[in-house]
Structures are given as structure tokens and as C-alpha cells.
């Protein structure tokens, strides 16, 4: 039977457990099961035959762990194992299809582990190529608990084969995977990347997993898969607690609720599959209903665009000097804090624009997307005009993103839309083209229609299209405001797509901008705007969004509205600086961040920034540092002082940047946790202290290759490098980094720190300084840069 014919059947019977069957044959735990395809092929063939005889129509070849990371110590190559395993399955197939089975690598991906997305992709690509040349009929990717790893495998499958791909992940009873991915986000992401069916395997018993898989039906049009365990294992004996008959009853229930691919995982045997086959014989299949709502998601949060959802606009250098400075200095933490504060203020989605002529936008976009998705759960909107930046961002983004943007220009459409389709993203279309912005609603609508038609022709579903009818400045073109509102209504009603709109432009050049913005936003929402791009930190704008949601019955029973405003009137402003009883020195010393910031703001009106730094901030830090050294102050308190100083510095830098001054730095220092090591809290403590003594810290993060550290040191001419390692196993890579630095940039000084290091060992591996704690790293830096001498 070919794949197409099989997939047209109402139900497709998969196989059951391989591992369970092998354990019954006496295979020891910890054995790399895939090697049995070479050492005991008859066992594997027996198992396949038994499942085929029980009715399985797809046999999962014994390739689950046949990747180079797991096979490393076995002496076998991926190709050997995959081709042997597929041939065995084919020998036993008897008309069934043979699937290349792909399981997890056994390593955690970034940011939880140290395997990069790109490396994982390469690992899977190798397996896929081997599977294709061995003649697999289809690919199954299963038992994934990390959506990022699933994406790497699915991309590898799509890009190195034309075979159908079935994707299943493993969830806990709370509906999340070990890494926190929820069921909807999993289904949305796998659907977006082009899976042919999606579902759940392993995890739980058939009843619990059967209920969880229903959630997938809410967000995907694809057929679903259920391949659960035979219940839960007994902690003592490892025996599973659901028998074949009960298993079949529960599976049949799921089948009658719309699941079409069914089989078993751990604890199941051919007897289970036989029972399932009988149980589904008379069940009427259910077709998945078409889904019309757009869903976007991160790895841990799905956002249905079924009401007004706010897209935060603050990650964007346009008109923001401080943000530009952050991009130029690679202050990723500053960019992340912009993301966090918007999410806290209520942004549902974050727009990410890091385009600046002086920097490599693609590289920065990838860095920022990876960093953002490791700390915020709001889905992202990739905002760029560079095809390369969009492609690379979509590739590494762990979820379903929106691309901002295309327009009516044919060249743009035919360049960007294929990428949108490839990665299953949603897309924003601006209603302008090579001819510029059109004045009338009808002209803009015509462009909108062209964009929608072109997107549809590329196979992008209508629900994934968002049209931006463009906000013009009311002070310049007053009549255009209502034209935009009219266009929004037409696009929503006649094209049935989403409407996105950056609203703040409307008030440019007018007094009382907040009032104009809010009124325009309200009008636009009334006309159908569901994706405003705005500043969520502007409380009045958020007030309008919440009030609209309540009036439009999106916020049923006004629950959210009452929860937000039901208590007393919200506090308007932080306490004014004038009421503070502390001096800036004291505020910093006592670690009072808000107070330090507001005192600094007040001081800046009549005090020179460097005077503030040198006579107030640094003496306070020195005092705290001295007390820390004598054990009278503890590390957390020292960090609090540093953070208060940081808040003060933040205000100073903001002011200096807005006055066009470049900030004064006492010198550049690179900090990095060495290759192979992923501990970084200690390094981050050192960083905050150094920054507050006026040094510019180039933080390369953790698990950093020696070459990257050396290259950065040379390119940015950095005289001091601080390296951190916390494991005996990674001291070696610290030594390699030092050796390479000394060879390529001999004038560069190296200081090292970390729990397993000692003064003697630091010397032995060629470091110039050993820093026993964060405070000492400041002393070393001051010494190197010629202070305090």
C-alpha cells in the first residue's frame, strides 16, 4: 500500500512498544537498543512481524536513538544502523509501511542545555538522509519533550526528504512537556512547519492522553495521532497498569472523538494492537473542522487572535537613542528588559526590530530572538525588511511568529511570502507599494486584496494574513485618519483577514498626543482592528484596550476588567524624589533602586553626570565593597548596592544618550563562561559590579568558544578578559581559551574565577589574575586600567 492510500483511510493503525518487547527478551537497561539491529536482527524482525500480524499498518523501524550523539560510543555509524534497521522493517512489512523513527538526541537544547539548535538540526539531518537512502516510506518524529528539538528534527525532515512526517510529543498530566511546552503551542508549531499529522505519544495512559489530544483539535486542521503508554508503570516492578482490553476501549473513545492515527507506546504489545484493531472496527470517523482563527505561539504560550491582542512596539531603535546605543554595544540584557517590561504591562506579542545600518542585522536578530525566547513567553513578531534577517529569525524562533512585513510590491511579495510559507508564520501586509502610500480607502483596499491573493496563492491560509491599513499623521493629513478607519473595516469585513495597525503615528505634531492616540485606537478597534502595535507601558492606551474588550464582550462578565480596576483607583505615579530622605550615596548603599533612580534624575538637573558617578555612586559601592571584604556585608547586599547603582547609571546614560553624548567608559572588559560550561549567575554578578564601576562589559554569555572570545577581543581591542568556569571538566577549555588569547592577542590580560579554581591552578593554566569573588574582579580591573594606584 502506498502512503497516500493509507492516509486516506479513516483510521491508521500504528505499532506498539519496541523497548518493552526487547526487555522481555532480556536486553539490559542502558543498552543502545538500535545496535540490536546489527547484533540481534532476528529479535527486531520478530517484533515487527508480531505487530504486523496484529494489524499494524505502519512499522516504526528500530532507529529511535540512531543519531550520532547516542551512537557515539557504540562503534556504529548512523548510516549502518539506519540502513540495517529499515531493511529489517521492510523484510517484516508484508504490505505495511516502514517509518524512519526519530527520537530525541538525549541532550537538552539551548537555553536549557548546551546543544545548539543548529547542531541538533545537523544531527537529525544525518538521520533523515540515511533513512531516505535506506528507503523509508515515511518519517515519524516521536517522544519529543522539547519543542525546539522537535522543530530541529521536523525542519531536517522537510529539508532533506519529501516523505510524509508524523510528529508526536510527550506530555505530563498537567498538559505540559518537561520543558514547559503546552499542547496547543506544540500542535500550532508542528502544523506551521509542515507536519502531516500531529499528536501525543508515550506520556500517560490512553484515557488521559486521549483527553489531552483533544486540545490539539482546537488549533489544527491536521489528522491527529495517539500512541500512549499502557497506563503508568509500577515504581517497583516497572509493570504498566492498563491491560489490552481497557487500552482498546480508551483508544476507541479517542478515535470516535477525531483521532485517526492510533497505536501504543511503552508497555504495549501486539496483543494491545490486536485489541485496538477490533475496538475501532465499527467507529465512525470524524473529520477535523477547518480552523479560521489565527493562533501564534511561543514554546510555552499560545495566543489566539480571537480578540484584540496588543503587539508591543518598544523593541525598535527608531527614534530611541538609548536603544541604538544598546544595539551598538551589544547590551542584550537591555533589550531583554524592554521585552520583559512590555509583557508585564500586558503585551500579548512583542515586535522585534533590531535594524541599524552600523550592525549586522541578521546576526543581531538571531541573537535577540534566541535571548528573548529564553526569558519571555509572549510570541514574537519579526520586524525587518531584510529577507536574510527574516529567514534566519524564523528558523531559530521556537514557535509560530508573525512576519512584519510585506507590501504590495511584487518583488517583496515574491521574496518574503515563500519564507512565510516555509516556516508557517503569519504575515503583515502593508497597504502600500512601489508607488507609495495611497490616499483613498479604495486604493489601499486594492493593495490589501492583492497581498491577500498572493499569500493565498503561496498556500498561506487566510487566517495567517494580517493587513496594515497604515496610520498617517493627522496634523499633516487630517482627512486620512477616517480613511484608515474605513479601510480597516473593509479589510476585516470583505477580506476576512486580521487587521494590524501602528497607532501612535496619528498624533505626531499635535498637542495632547495621548488623547489623540487613545481616541484613534478606540475608533480603530471599533472598526475591527485586532492587532494594535503600540506601547503597552502607556497605561491609558492599555486602559482603552481593556475597556474595549469588556464592551465587545471579549472579556466575558467583565471579569478581567473588574480584576484590573475593581480595587481602588490604581496608583498614578511613583513617589516623587523630593520626598526621599536619603542622599544618592545612601540610597545606593542601602540598595534602593527606585529611589536611586529618582534621586539621580533630580540631581542631573544641576550636577554633571561624571560628578555624580565619581562622588556619589563609586564611594557608595566602595563602602559596600569594603564591608563585604571584611565579612560585614553579604553577597546579596553587595549585589543590591550594585543594582541600585545600576538604576542610577541607567538614568545617567539615558540622559547622556538623549543629549547626544557618548557615554564615558573606564575601559572595555570581556566576560564569558568558557566553552562547555553553562553556569552563569556568578559571571553575571561580576558583570553588574564591573559595570557600576564605570567599565563597559562585553558579555559573551555562557558556553562560549575560545575563537569567539579571541575574535571579539581583537576586533573590539579589549585589554582585559574575565573567564569563568565551574566544573573540573571545563577547566580544560578555560586553559585552551587562555592559550589562544595569549597567542593571538599577547597584550590581553586574563582574569579567571569560579568555584573549582584556585590561585595555583589559575597560574598553572596561564591566567594573569585569579579573582576569588566579584569584588576582587573590580580591584583587578581598576589595577589594569590604572586606577587606585
Amino acid at each position, binding site marked *: 500500500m502506498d502512503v497516500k492510500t493509507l492516509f486516506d483511510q479513516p483510521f491508521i493503525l500504528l505499532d506498539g512498544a519496541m523497548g518493552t518487547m526487547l526487555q522481555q527478551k532480556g536486553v539490559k537497561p542502558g543498552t543502545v537498543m538500535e545496535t540490536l539491529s546489527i547484533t540481534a536482527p532476528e529479535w527486531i524482525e520478530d517484533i515487527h512481524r508480531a505487530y504486523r500480524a496484529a494489524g499494524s499498518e505502519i512499522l516504526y523501524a528500530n532507529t529511535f536513538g540512531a543519531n550520532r550523539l547516542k551512537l557515539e560510543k557504540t562503534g556504529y555509524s548512523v548510516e549502518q544502523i539506519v540502513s540495517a534497521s529499515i531493511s529489517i522493517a521492510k523484510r517484516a512489512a508484508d504490505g505495511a509501511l516502514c517509518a524512519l523513527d526519530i527520537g530525541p538526541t538525549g541532550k537538552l537544547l539551548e537555553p536549557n542545555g548546551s546543544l545548539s539548535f543548529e547542531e541538533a538540526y545537523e544531527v537529525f539531518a544525518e538521520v533523515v538522509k540515511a533513512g531516505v537512502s535506506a528507503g523509508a516510506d515515511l518519517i515519524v518524529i516521536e517522544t519529543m519533550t522539547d519543542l525546539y528539538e522537535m522543530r530541529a528534527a521536523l525542519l531536517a525532515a522537510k529539508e532533506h526528504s519529501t516523505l510524509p512526517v508524523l510528529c508526536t510529543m510527550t506530555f505530563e498530566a498537567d498538559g505540559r512537556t518537561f*520543558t514547559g511546552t503546552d499542547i496547543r503551542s506544540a500542535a500550532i508549531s508542528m502544523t506551521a512547519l509542515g507536519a502531516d499529522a500531529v499528536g501525543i505519544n508515550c506520556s500517560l495512559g490512553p484515557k488521559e492522553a486521549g483527553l489531552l489530544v483533544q486540545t490539539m483539535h482546537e488549533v489544527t486542521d491536521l489528522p491527529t495521532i495517539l500512541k500512549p503508554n499502557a497506563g503508568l508503570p509500577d515504581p517497583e516492578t516497572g509493570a504498566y497498569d492498563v491491560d489490552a482490553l481497557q487500552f482498546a476501549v480508551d483508544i476507541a473513545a479517542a478515535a470516535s472523538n477525531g483521532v485517526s492515527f492510533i497505536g501504543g507506546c511503552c508497555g504495549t504489545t501486539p496483543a494491545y494492537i490486536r485489541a485496538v484493531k477490533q475496538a475501532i472496527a465499527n467507529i465512525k470517523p470524524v473529520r477535523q473542522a477547518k480552523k479560521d482563527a489565527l493562533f501564534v505561539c511561543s514554546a510555552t504560550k499560545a495566543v489566539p487572535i480571537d480578540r484584540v491582542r496588543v503587539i508591543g512596539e518598544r523593541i525598535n531603535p527608531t527614534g530611541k537613542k538609548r536603544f541604538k546605543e544598546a544595539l551598538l554595544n551589544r547590551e542584550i540584557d537591555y533589550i531583554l528588559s524592554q521585552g520583559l517590561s512590555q509583557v508585564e504591562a500586558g503585551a500579548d506579542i512583542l515586535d522585534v526590530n533590531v535594524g541599524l545600518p552600523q550592525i549586522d542585522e541578521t546576526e543581531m536578530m538571531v541573537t535577540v530572538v534566541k535571548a528573548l525566547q529564553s526569558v519571555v513567553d509572549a510570541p514574537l513578531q519579526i520586524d525587518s525588511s531584510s529577507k536574510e534577517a527574516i529567514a534566519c529569525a524564523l528558523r531559530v524562533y521556537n514557535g509560530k511568529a508573525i512576519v512584519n512585513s510585506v507590501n504590495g510590491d511584487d518583488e517583496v511579495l515574491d521574496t518574503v511570502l515563500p519564507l512565510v510559507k516555509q516556516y508557517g508564520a503569519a504575515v503583515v501586509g502593508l497597504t502600500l507599494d512601489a508607488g507609495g502610500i495611497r490616499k483613498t480607502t479604495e486604493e489601499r483596499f486594492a493593495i490589501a486584496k492583492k497581498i491577500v491573493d498572493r499569500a493565498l496563492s503561496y498556500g498561506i491560509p487566510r487566517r495567517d494574513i494580517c493587513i496594515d491599513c497604515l496610520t498617517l499623521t493627522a496634523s499633516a493629513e487630517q482627512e486620512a485618519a477616517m480613511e484608515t478607519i474605513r479601510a480597516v473595516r473593509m479589510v476585516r469585513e470583505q477580506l476576512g483577514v486580521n487587521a494590524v495597525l501602528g497607532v501612535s503615528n496619528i498624533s505626531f505634531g499635535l498637542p495632547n498626543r495621548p488623547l489623540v492616540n487613545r481616541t484613534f485606537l478606540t475608533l480603530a478597534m471599533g472598526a475591527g482592528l485586532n492587532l494594535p502595535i503600540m506601547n503597552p507601558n502607556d497605561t491609558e492606551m492599555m486602559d482603552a484596550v481593556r475597556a474595549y474588550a469588556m464592551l465587545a464582550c471579549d472579556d466575558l462578565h467583565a471579569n478581567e476588567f473588574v480584576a484590573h480596576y475593581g480595587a481602588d483607583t490604581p496608583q498614578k505615579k511613583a513617589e516623587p524624589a523630593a520626598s526621599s530622605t536619603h542622599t544618592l550615596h545612601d540610597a545606593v548603599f542601602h540598595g534602593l533602586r527606585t529611589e536611586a533612580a529618582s534621586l539621580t534624575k533630580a540631581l542631573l538637573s544641576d550636577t554633571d553626570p561624571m560628578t555624580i558617578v565619581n562622588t556619589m555612586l563609586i564611594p557608595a559601592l566602595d563602602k559596600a565593597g569594603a564591608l563585604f571584604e571584611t565579612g560585614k556585608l553579604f553577597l546579596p547586599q553587595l549585589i543590591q548596592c550594585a543594582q541600585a547603582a545600576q538604576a542610577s547609571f541607567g538614568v545617567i546614560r539615558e540622559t547622556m544618550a538623549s543629549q547626544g553624548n557618548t557615554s564615558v567608559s573606564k575601559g572595555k572588559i570581556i566576560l564569558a563562561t568558557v566553552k562547555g560550561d553553562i553556569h552563569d549567575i556568578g559571571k553575571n554578578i561580576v558583570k*553588574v559590579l564591573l559595570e557600576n564601576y564605570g567599565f563597559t562589559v562585553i558579555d559573551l554569555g555562557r558556553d562560549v568558544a575560545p575563537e569567539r572570545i579571541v575574535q571579539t577581543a581583537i576586533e573590539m581591542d579589549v585589554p582585559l578578559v574575565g573567564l569563568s568556569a565551574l566544573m573540573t571538566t571545563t577547566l580544560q577549555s578555560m586553559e585552551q581559551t587562555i592559550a589562544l588569547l595569549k597567542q593571538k592577542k599577547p597584550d590581553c590580560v586574563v582574569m579567571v574565577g569560579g568555584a573549582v579554581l584556585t590561585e595555583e591552578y589559575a597560574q598553572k593554566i596561564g591566567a594573569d589574575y585569579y579573582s576569588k569573588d566579584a569584588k576582587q574582579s573590580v580591584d583587578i580591573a581598576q589595577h589594569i586600567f590604572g586606577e587606585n594606584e
Partner: protein
Amino acid sequence: MTAERVCTRIPLSEVMRYAGCHGHDERAEQMAADSIQALSSVIRPRVVSKVCRVTQTPDGCLFDDALLIPGNDLSALLNGCDQAALLACTLSAQTDAFIRKAELSDLSNALFLDSCATAAVEVVCDLFEEELQSRYPDMKRTMRYSPGYGDVPITVQEEFLSFLDAPRKIGLCATASSILTPRKSVTAIIGLSKTEVSHAKRSCETCNLKDHCQFRQKGDFCGR
């Protein structure tokens, strides 16, 4: 094992100590207490374990005839033990993510959360030992011994995890440098003996860090 149960058992003094506070400070204690509270809705304690037969061989200890762990110190520890419990546990990736996020907004808070999570994973081990005690009431237990202690190479982590099927069962993996990921995780071996054991408590004697341990220099001890 629920998060609440683990968090109620975290000793405040341990959190303070891991955070580098070697004395009394009200504000720091409040932060430590807050971090315990915060973690109680974040951590997802997961445990996988197996009680195995132990065979002493010239190359090290062999568990259930399948997993060989070298090291004279481990052989000495398990001397007289017919069985041993192999344990792997983790607070899960969400805990790491939570601390990572806290680092961006308040590093001192993140330091307390990190310290608190370190203390929490020890509590998970303690609770496991209590269960072990009730399952084997007549057996004496050795101290918990982890890969990386004494002369037991830390590079056995991957095999150890794979023996317990830990990547699949609890999502716990080891990196190429043998670092456990998620970060707040422990692997350990606990010997079970019908007779008295000589290494029932942890001590500094077998520790690789004893000569330059910061706790020891302050007259303190990293364990309890």
C-alpha cells in the same frame, strides 16, 4: 513528590548559606523566605530511581550486571552493601527558566532563587531517602554519593542517566562536559546494607574540594 511538600522542608539557613550570607540579616532572611515561596509554584520535582544489586569488581562497582562505575572511593563506600539505590532527580527546566528571567530584573533575588533551588533539590533527595527508609526499614543506608565525588569520574553521568532512562522519564540529560541539565538536578548512589555502614554521613575527607573549599575555610560545611 509535590512542589509544596519540597518547599516546606527547605531550611532557611541553607538558602542563606548558599547565597553567601554567613550571619543574621533580616532583609536577606526575608528575601530567602520569599524565594522559597516563589519557587513553590515553579519547581516540578521529578525523581527516577532503581534499587540494584551491587557486585564489587576490580574495575569498580557493577550495578545489576549492567552499569559499571569505577572509583576506589565508591567501592569503599559500598563495601558490605549487597544493594544500592541509584537516584536521579531534577526540579525541571521551568526552574532554570524562572531563575534566568529573575536574573534580568533583580540579580540578588535571582541569587536567592538559585540558592533556594539548590537547597530544594537536596530536599528532594532527602524525601527520596525517607521513602527508601520506609521501603527498606531493616537496611542501613550509606551517605548519598554522587558522580564527581572522590575518584568517581563525573563523566559517568551520561551512562548513569541512560541506565535509569532518566532523559525520557524525567527529562534529565548530561551535556558533553557532564553537566546535568536542567541545572538543578542531582544523581546519587545510596548503598543499602544489612549491617552497619561505615560512611553513613557526608564528610569533607573524601571531597575533592576540601583544600580550598570556601565553606571549610570559614569553618563551615557544605552538607548537613
